[in-house]
Protein backbone atom coordinates (compact mmCIF):
# COMPACT_ATOMS: atom_id res chain seq x y z
CA UNK A 1 0.00 0.00 0.00
CA UNK A 2 1.37 3.38 -1.00
CA UNK A 3 1.70 6.01 1.69
CA UNK A 4 -0.68 8.93 1.93
CA UNK A 5 1.90 11.34 0.55
CA UNK A 6 2.61 9.01 -2.40
CA UNK A 7 -1.10 8.76 -3.17
CA UNK A 8 -1.60 12.52 -3.01
CA UNK A 9 1.48 12.99 -5.21
CA UNK A 10 0.08 10.54 -7.76
CA UNK A 11 -3.31 12.30 -7.75
CA UNK A 12 -1.49 15.54 -8.47
CA UNK A 13 0.07 14.00 -11.56
CA UNK A 14 -2.85 12.03 -12.96
CA UNK A 15 -5.27 12.82 -15.75
CA UNK A 16 -8.94 11.83 -15.54
CA UNK A 17 -11.94 12.04 -17.81
CA UNK A 18 -15.26 11.58 -16.06
CA UNK A 19 -18.97 11.55 -16.69
CA UNK A 20 -21.30 11.39 -13.73
CA UNK A 21 -24.93 11.92 -12.85
CA UNK A 22 -26.21 13.25 -9.56
CA UNK A 23 -29.42 12.13 -7.88
CA UNK A 24 -31.10 15.42 -8.89
CA UNK A 25 -30.36 14.64 -12.54
CA UNK A 26 -27.40 16.97 -13.01
CA UNK A 27 -24.90 15.47 -15.44
CA UNK A 28 -21.31 16.60 -15.32
CA UNK A 29 -18.65 15.64 -17.81
CA UNK A 30 -15.12 16.84 -17.36
CA UNK A 31 -11.40 16.42 -17.33
CA UNK A 32 -9.08 16.90 -14.40
CA UNK A 33 -5.34 17.30 -14.65
CA UNK A 34 -3.65 16.75 -11.37
CA UNK A 35 -6.30 17.71 -8.86
CA UNK A 36 -7.54 20.64 -10.91
CA UNK A 37 -10.62 20.65 -13.08
CA UNK A 38 -9.54 21.98 -16.48
CA UNK A 39 -12.54 21.20 -18.69
CA UNK A 40 -16.14 20.71 -17.72
CA UNK A 41 -19.72 20.63 -18.88
CA UNK A 42 -22.63 20.59 -16.42
CA UNK A 43 -26.22 20.09 -17.51
CA UNK A 44 -29.26 20.12 -15.25
CA UNK A 45 -32.93 20.78 -15.75
CA UNK A 46 -34.64 22.49 -12.85
CA UNK A 47 -33.54 22.97 -9.29
CA UNK A 48 -30.43 21.48 -7.71
CA UNK A 49 -31.74 19.50 -4.75
CA UNK A 50 -29.44 16.53 -4.30
CA UNK A 51 -25.78 16.55 -5.38
CA UNK A 52 -25.25 12.92 -4.35
CA UNK A 53 -23.49 10.87 -6.97
CA UNK A 54 -25.96 8.47 -8.61
CA UNK A 55 -23.40 6.95 -10.95
CA UNK A 56 -19.98 7.77 -12.22
CA UNK A 57 -17.67 6.53 -14.95
CA UNK A 58 -14.06 7.69 -14.86
CA UNK A 59 -11.12 7.07 -17.10
CA UNK A 60 -8.03 7.47 -14.93
CA UNK A 61 -4.68 7.87 -16.66
CA UNK A 62 -1.29 7.84 -15.04
CA UNK A 63 2.35 7.51 -15.96
CA UNK A 64 5.34 9.49 -17.08
CA UNK A 65 4.10 10.13 -20.63
CA UNK A 66 0.93 12.03 -19.83
CA UNK A 67 0.43 15.52 -21.23
CA UNK A 68 1.32 18.22 -18.74
CA UNK A 69 -0.22 21.29 -20.32
CA UNK A 70 -3.95 22.01 -20.54
CA UNK A 71 -3.77 22.67 -24.27
CA UNK A 72 -2.31 19.21 -24.90
CA UNK A 73 -4.90 17.22 -22.99
CA UNK A 74 -7.80 17.05 -25.46
CA UNK A 75 -5.57 16.21 -28.45
CA UNK A 76 -3.89 13.52 -26.35
CA UNK A 77 -7.20 11.93 -25.33
CA UNK A 78 -8.41 12.03 -28.93
CA UNK A 79 -5.14 10.56 -30.20
CA UNK A 80 -5.72 7.49 -28.02
CA UNK A 81 -9.36 7.18 -28.98
CA UNK A 82 -9.10 3.68 -30.47
CA UNK A 83 -7.47 2.14 -27.39
CA UNK A 84 -9.90 3.92 -25.07
CA UNK A 85 -12.99 2.97 -27.06
CA UNK A 86 -11.84 -0.63 -27.29
CA UNK A 87 -11.52 -0.83 -23.49
CA UNK A 88 -14.87 0.85 -22.96
CA UNK A 89 -16.50 -1.65 -25.33
CA UNK A 90 -15.06 -4.64 -23.49
CA UNK A 91 -15.89 -3.15 -20.10
CA UNK A 92 -19.50 -2.48 -21.09
CA UNK A 93 -19.82 -6.11 -22.19
CA UNK A 94 -18.48 -7.18 -18.82
CA UNK A 95 -20.95 -4.93 -17.02
CA UNK A 96 -23.85 -6.15 -19.14
CA UNK A 97 -22.90 -9.72 -18.27
CA UNK A 98 -23.38 -8.91 -14.60
CA UNK A 99 -21.24 -6.92 -12.20
CA UNK A 100 -22.25 -5.06 -9.06
CA UNK A 101 -20.92 -1.51 -8.91
CA UNK A 102 -23.01 -0.69 -5.83
CA UNK A 103 -20.59 -2.60 -3.63
CA UNK A 104 -18.18 -1.28 -1.07
CA UNK A 105 -15.46 -0.58 -3.61
CA UNK A 106 -15.79 0.92 -7.09
CA UNK A 107 -15.54 -1.45 -10.05
CA UNK A 108 -12.28 -1.17 -11.97
CA UNK A 109 -11.23 -2.25 -15.44
CA UNK A 110 -7.58 -1.96 -16.40
CA UNK A 111 -7.28 -4.28 -19.39
CA UNK A 112 -6.21 -1.62 -21.91
CA UNK A 113 -4.43 -2.76 -25.05
CA UNK A 114 -1.94 -0.93 -27.22
CA UNK A 115 -1.17 1.97 -24.92
CA UNK A 116 2.13 3.76 -25.41
CA UNK A 117 4.98 3.12 -23.00
CA UNK A 118 4.77 5.16 -19.84
CA UNK A 119 0.97 5.31 -19.76
CA UNK A 120 -1.50 3.24 -17.78
CA UNK A 121 -5.26 3.64 -17.83
CA UNK A 122 -8.18 2.22 -15.94
CA UNK A 123 -11.92 2.72 -15.94
CA UNK A 124 -13.48 3.14 -12.53
CA UNK A 125 -17.21 3.23 -11.97
CA UNK A 126 -19.66 3.41 -9.13
CA UNK A 127 -23.41 3.45 -8.71
CA UNK A 128 -25.39 4.45 -5.67
CA UNK A 129 -28.35 2.16 -6.20
CA UNK A 130 -29.11 -0.98 -8.15
CA UNK A 131 -31.46 1.14 -10.26
CA UNK A 132 -28.47 3.27 -11.34
CA UNK A 133 -26.20 0.23 -11.68
CA UNK A 134 -28.65 -1.39 -14.07
CA UNK A 135 -27.94 1.28 -16.68
CA UNK A 136 -24.20 1.54 -16.14
CA UNK A 137 -23.30 -0.52 -19.19
CA UNK A 138 -25.38 1.91 -21.26
CA UNK A 139 -23.53 4.88 -19.79
CA UNK A 140 -20.17 3.27 -20.55
CA UNK A 141 -21.36 2.56 -24.09
CA UNK A 142 -22.60 6.12 -24.48
CA UNK A 143 -19.16 7.45 -23.62
CA UNK A 144 -17.58 5.07 -26.12
CA UNK A 145 -19.96 6.04 -28.90
CA UNK A 146 -19.64 9.79 -28.25
CA UNK A 147 -16.01 9.91 -27.14
CA UNK A 148 -14.67 12.54 -29.51
CA UNK A 149 -17.83 14.67 -29.27
CA UNK A 150 -17.79 14.56 -25.45
CA UNK A 151 -14.12 15.51 -25.27
CA UNK A 152 -14.35 18.27 -27.88
CA UNK A 153 -17.46 19.86 -26.35
CA UNK A 154 -15.97 20.37 -22.92
CA UNK A 155 -15.41 23.96 -21.96
CA UNK A 156 -12.45 25.38 -20.04
CA UNK A 157 -13.12 25.56 -16.34
CA UNK A 158 -12.85 29.16 -15.26
CA UNK A 159 -14.29 28.89 -11.77
CA UNK A 160 -11.90 28.35 -8.93
CA UNK A 161 -13.11 26.72 -5.76
CA UNK A 162 -11.77 28.57 -2.77
Amino acid at each position, binding site marked *: *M*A*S*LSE*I*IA*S*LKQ*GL*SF*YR*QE*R*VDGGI*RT*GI*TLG*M*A*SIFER*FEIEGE*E*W*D*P*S*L*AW*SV*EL*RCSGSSLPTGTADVKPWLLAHESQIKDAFRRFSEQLAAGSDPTG*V*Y*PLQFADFRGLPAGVTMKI*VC*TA*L*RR*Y*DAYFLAEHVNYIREHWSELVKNLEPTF*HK*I*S
Partner: protein
Amino acid sequence: MREKILDTNKLISQWKRRRKRPLGDYETSDVEVWAAELIELYETNCILTPVYLEFIGGVIDRREMELSRAFLGAFSILDEGDIRPEDWTKACQLAERIPQDTRPRGAIDCLIKAITIRLRCVLVTDDTGMPRHP
Protein backbone atom coordinates in the same frame (compact mmCIF):
# COMPACT_ATOMS: atom_id res chain seq x y z
CA MET B 1 -10.31 15.41 -8.03
CA ARG B 2 -11.74 18.37 -6.18
CA GLU B 3 -15.20 17.85 -7.60
CA LYS B 4 -15.89 14.88 -5.35
CA ILE B 5 -16.65 15.16 -1.66
CA LEU B 6 -16.68 12.10 0.58
CA ASP B 7 -19.73 11.81 2.83
CA THR B 8 -19.43 10.75 6.46
CA ASN B 9 -20.85 7.30 5.74
CA LYS B 10 -17.98 6.59 3.32
CA LEU B 11 -15.44 7.46 6.01
CA ILE B 12 -17.24 5.45 8.66
CA SER B 13 -17.64 2.37 6.46
CA GLN B 14 -13.92 2.44 5.58
CA TRP B 15 -13.04 2.79 9.27
CA LYS B 16 -15.28 -0.11 10.28
CA ARG B 17 -14.14 -2.29 7.42
CA ARG B 18 -10.45 -1.85 8.19
CA ARG B 19 -10.72 -2.11 11.97
CA LYS B 20 -10.30 -5.78 12.81
CA ARG B 21 -8.95 -5.51 16.33
CA PRO B 22 -9.36 -3.26 19.40
CA LEU B 23 -8.23 0.29 18.61
CA GLY B 24 -5.44 0.02 21.18
CA ASP B 25 -3.68 -2.29 18.73
CA TYR B 26 -3.42 0.42 16.08
CA GLU B 27 -1.08 3.35 15.57
CA THR B 28 -1.90 6.64 13.90
CA SER B 29 0.13 5.49 10.90
CA ASP B 30 -2.32 2.58 10.46
CA VAL B 31 -5.39 4.78 10.27
CA GLU B 32 -3.59 7.12 7.88
CA VAL B 33 -3.26 4.11 5.56
CA TRP B 34 -7.00 3.47 5.91
CA ALA B 35 -7.63 7.04 4.83
CA ALA B 36 -5.14 6.75 1.99
CA GLU B 37 -6.95 3.69 0.63
CA LEU B 38 -10.21 5.60 0.52
CA ILE B 39 -8.55 8.60 -1.13
CA GLU B 40 -6.98 6.40 -3.77
CA LEU B 41 -10.22 4.53 -4.48
CA TYR B 42 -12.29 7.63 -5.08
CA GLU B 43 -9.44 9.89 -6.22
CA THR B 44 -10.41 12.60 -3.81
CA ASN B 45 -9.29 13.74 -0.39
CA CYS B 46 -12.11 16.26 0.05
CA ILE B 47 -14.56 16.36 2.93
CA LEU B 48 -16.61 19.18 4.49
CA THR B 49 -16.67 20.68 7.96
CA PRO B 50 -19.99 18.95 8.86
CA VAL B 51 -18.49 15.61 7.75
CA TYR B 52 -15.58 16.18 10.11
CA LEU B 53 -17.95 17.09 12.94
CA GLU B 54 -20.25 14.14 12.32
CA PHE B 55 -17.36 11.69 12.33
CA ILE B 56 -15.68 13.10 15.41
CA GLY B 57 -19.04 13.33 17.16
CA GLY B 58 -19.30 9.55 17.13
CA VAL B 59 -16.03 8.96 18.97
CA ILE B 60 -16.36 7.28 22.38
CA ASP B 61 -12.97 7.51 24.09
CA ARG B 62 -9.63 9.30 24.11
CA ARG B 63 -7.73 6.69 22.08
CA GLU B 64 -10.38 6.64 19.39
CA MET B 65 -10.28 10.44 19.33
CA GLU B 66 -6.53 10.40 18.77
CA LEU B 67 -6.82 7.91 15.91
CA SER B 68 -9.85 9.66 14.44
CA ARG B 69 -7.97 12.95 14.30
CA ALA B 70 -5.10 11.21 12.49
CA PHE B 71 -7.56 9.57 10.08
CA LEU B 72 -9.41 12.81 9.39
CA GLY B 73 -6.13 14.68 9.10
CA ALA B 74 -5.50 12.88 5.83
CA PHE B 75 -8.45 14.68 4.25
CA SER B 76 -8.82 18.23 3.09
CA ILE B 77 -11.79 20.26 4.36
CA LEU B 78 -12.89 21.92 1.17
CA ASP B 79 -15.11 24.61 2.70
CA GLU B 80 -12.33 25.55 5.17
CA GLY B 81 -14.93 26.10 7.87
CA ASP B 82 -16.57 28.85 5.82
CA ILE B 83 -20.26 27.95 6.11
CA ARG B 84 -22.30 30.78 4.71
CA PRO B 85 -25.84 32.09 5.29
CA GLU B 86 -26.79 30.84 1.81
CA ASP B 87 -25.75 27.32 2.88
CA TRP B 88 -28.18 27.42 5.80
CA THR B 89 -30.91 28.78 3.52
CA LYS B 90 -30.35 26.01 0.99
CA ALA B 91 -30.15 23.40 3.77
CA CYS B 92 -33.50 24.64 5.04
CA GLN B 93 -35.01 24.30 1.54
CA LEU B 94 -33.71 20.75 1.30
CA ALA B 95 -35.14 19.91 4.73
CA GLU B 96 -38.51 21.28 3.64
CA ARG B 97 -38.54 19.00 0.61
CA ILE B 98 -40.74 16.11 1.74
CA PRO B 99 -39.89 12.85 -0.04
CA GLN B 100 -42.57 10.38 -1.07
CA ASP B 101 -41.59 8.00 1.71
CA THR B 102 -41.73 10.92 4.22
CA ARG B 103 -38.38 9.85 5.67
CA PRO B 104 -36.91 12.56 7.95
CA ARG B 105 -34.15 14.67 6.42
CA GLY B 106 -31.17 14.94 8.76
CA ALA B 107 -29.96 18.48 9.49
CA ILE B 108 -26.30 17.61 8.88
CA ASP B 109 -27.15 15.77 5.66
CA CYS B 110 -29.03 18.80 4.37
CA LEU B 111 -26.14 21.10 5.26
CA ILE B 112 -23.59 18.82 3.60
CA LYS B 113 -25.68 18.78 0.42
CA ALA B 114 -26.17 22.55 0.50
CA ILE B 115 -22.45 23.23 0.75
CA THR B 116 -21.73 20.63 -1.93
CA ILE B 117 -24.13 22.40 -4.30
CA ARG B 118 -22.52 25.79 -3.63
CA LEU B 119 -19.04 24.42 -4.27
CA ARG B 120 -20.24 22.85 -7.53
CA CYS B 121 -19.20 19.39 -6.42
CA VAL B 122 -20.76 15.96 -6.12
CA LEU B 123 -21.22 14.01 -2.92
CA VAL B 124 -19.90 10.46 -2.85
CA THR B 125 -22.27 8.77 -0.44
CA ASP B 126 -24.04 5.54 0.44
CA ASP B 127 -27.10 7.50 1.56
CA THR B 128 -30.05 6.73 -0.67
CA GLY B 129 -32.31 8.81 1.55
CA MET B 130 -33.64 11.29 -0.97
CA PRO B 131 -35.86 9.88 -3.70
CA ARG B 132 -34.51 9.31 -7.20
CA HIS B 133 -37.70 10.51 -8.84
CA PRO B 134 -39.58 13.02 -6.68
